[in-house]
């Protein structure tokens, strides 16, 4: 009777488990100063992206042909470009595009690559050979070239850029996940789970994936940064997002002709890309340390 009472009480506590676990992760994350800096930068960017119309003093496509190529001033914080558009406003609006492209492309890469990698690693043998050789072929083509090829085939545009960048990162995720799965699947608890009556899908989802989460998270957070960079590069060469949408890479590209006289045109978009990637990398490292219960102290 006592046990029953006790267990009902505990069962109630158990339901709030999710917040409890999240709290643990947060406590560990908080200890890492650099990770907090990373989170601050990424948070700021997200806020900027969401509140773009409030933050930006001008519309991103508003041209003021009387004040083109102006140096930074109080009126135009980061100066204006060759068409007289306010660079600060364009960077603020650009964060929407860049973050969106980055996260979606990384998500495509993680999901497709993760699924392929875990299937290859778990089943091994023939399936492994087929998937991994196909991945090898993809790896033989440089990611950028592959993305350009896909984009050229699908045509430029936001969605196609995301798909192209996402697919070009699939091999990296697949390899990382497969490697992690290979070490995990040999462990006894996988056999124990099979002895409990779990099927393959259940075992992969419930036992293998959580154990591979650390490398996936690190790869994904670095992947977001890479995807932003790749999308910027695509726009830089004119295949990605099309003007007048304010994409950071496209802004770099547009400004590169004026780099001698007006370096601010490329400096600020470049800084924006750099800070975003720096923040995401710090955040990813911090998350890895915080999410791994084996490192718990």
């Amino acid at each position, binding site marked *: 009777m006592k*046990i*029953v009472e*006790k*267990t*009902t009480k*505990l*069962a109630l*506590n*158990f*339901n709030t*488990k999710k917040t*409890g*676990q999240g709290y643990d992760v947060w406590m560990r994350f908080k200890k890492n100063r650099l990770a907090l800096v990373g989170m601050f930068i990424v948070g700021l960017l997200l806020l900027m992206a969401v509140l773009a119309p409030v933050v930006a003093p001008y519309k991103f496509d508003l041209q003021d042909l009387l004040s083109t190529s102006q140096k930074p001033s109080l009126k135009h914080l980061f100066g204006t470009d060759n068409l007289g558009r306010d660079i600060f406003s364009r960077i603020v609006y650009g964060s929407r595009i860049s973050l969106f492209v980055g996260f979606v492309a990384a998500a495509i890469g993680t999901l497709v690559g993760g699924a392929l990698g875990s299937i290859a690693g778990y089943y091994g043998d023939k399936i492994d050979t087929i998937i991994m050789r196909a991945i090898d072929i993809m790896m033989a083509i440089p990611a950028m070239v592959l993305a350009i090829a896909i984009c050229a085939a699908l045509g430029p545009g936001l969605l196609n850029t995301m798909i192209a960048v996402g697919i070009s990162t699939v091999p990296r995720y697949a390899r990382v996940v497969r490697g992690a799965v290979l070490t995990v699947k040999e*462990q*006894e*608890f996988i*056999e*124990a*789970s*099979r*002895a*409990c*009556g*779990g*099927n393959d899908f*259940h075992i992969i989802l*419930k*036992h293998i994936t*959580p*154990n591979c*989460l650390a490398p996936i998270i690190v790869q994904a957070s670095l992947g977001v940064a890479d995807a932003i960079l790749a999308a910027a590069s695509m726009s830089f060469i004119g295949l990605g997002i099309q003007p007048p949408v304010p994409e950071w890479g496209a802004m770099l590209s547009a400004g590169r002709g004026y780099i001698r006289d007006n370096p601010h045109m490329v400096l600020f978009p470049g800084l924006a890309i750099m800070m975003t990637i720096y923040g995401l990398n710090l955040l990813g490292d911090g998350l890895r340390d915080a999410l791994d*219960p*084996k490192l*718990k102290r």
Partner: protein
Amino acid sequence: MNLLEIKGLKIHYITDSGVVRAVNGIDLEINRGETLGLVGETGAGKTTTALGIMCQVPDPPGKVVEGEIFFEGSNLLEKNAREIRKIRGSKISMIFQDPMTALNPVVTIGDQICEVIRLHQKTSHAESIKIACEMLELVGIPAERINEYPHQFSGGMKQRVVIAIALACKPSLLIADEPTTALDVTIQAQVLQMMDKLKKELGTSMLMITHDLGVVAEICDRVAIMYAGEIVEYGTLEAIFNNTAHPYTKGLFGSIPSLVLDVERLSPIDGLMPDPTQLPTGCSFAPRCNEKMSECEERKPELFQVSPGHFSKCIHHKNEMHKESRGC
């Protein structure tokens, strides 16, 4: 009807460098509520037998070559993957040797106990947690610790968790594969006592795989001695311990230090187990046997009855018995 009946089970590992004959035609039966001890040295094929019962022999390279495994009257080897999964964990469950690796390090123990319950029973999340808490209390772990991770427990506690998972669906057969080998002696006794108690409470049959005759003496009803993939002696606990028939079993008892007798040296069994890829043609124990005759190396011995319910697989011993009975 017996709960489990194994008939002529043969399991081979087929590798490039040869066929490893891990299990060579064993017969076993376990009644309801009974504990059978499967004893043998490393490499005798004990774990392969257990995996065979779970239909979990790693394939490739493992193959069940011959034999039948009847569980509650139906042959497990004829069932498809889905039917086997329904039996695993709910009717037959297994305790693995090393509790350090048998638990998923990134999932809380509560989730791991709930998992097996939810795989087999249609219970709500809250209900399964309640059962998990009860199971934890049953194996002597405070239910408060349900949200903790495996690394927060000691080895003995982890083995208790593993036992809780194995017993969560109240299986009719529990296979314990050297459950106490990885634990130190004081914890061994606790875990064994607890398993014995739970087994009686839940009416579970148990197949106890071990190389420790002390463990066998403590909780088994009947004992099967395994050597090179064969069962060489089989009988009740009393028959095996007091009326040892097979020279290998005698050798095993001779290798145990005694607390009572004052002996100068132990008498171990000389030599090593035969290479399972090249088993001898005659009795597989013959090369190490000190009672061997020329006949032993020529033909395979068969099981004969020493006394009712007590079988041994030894030509020499059989001949002796015959002489005695004729002499009378």
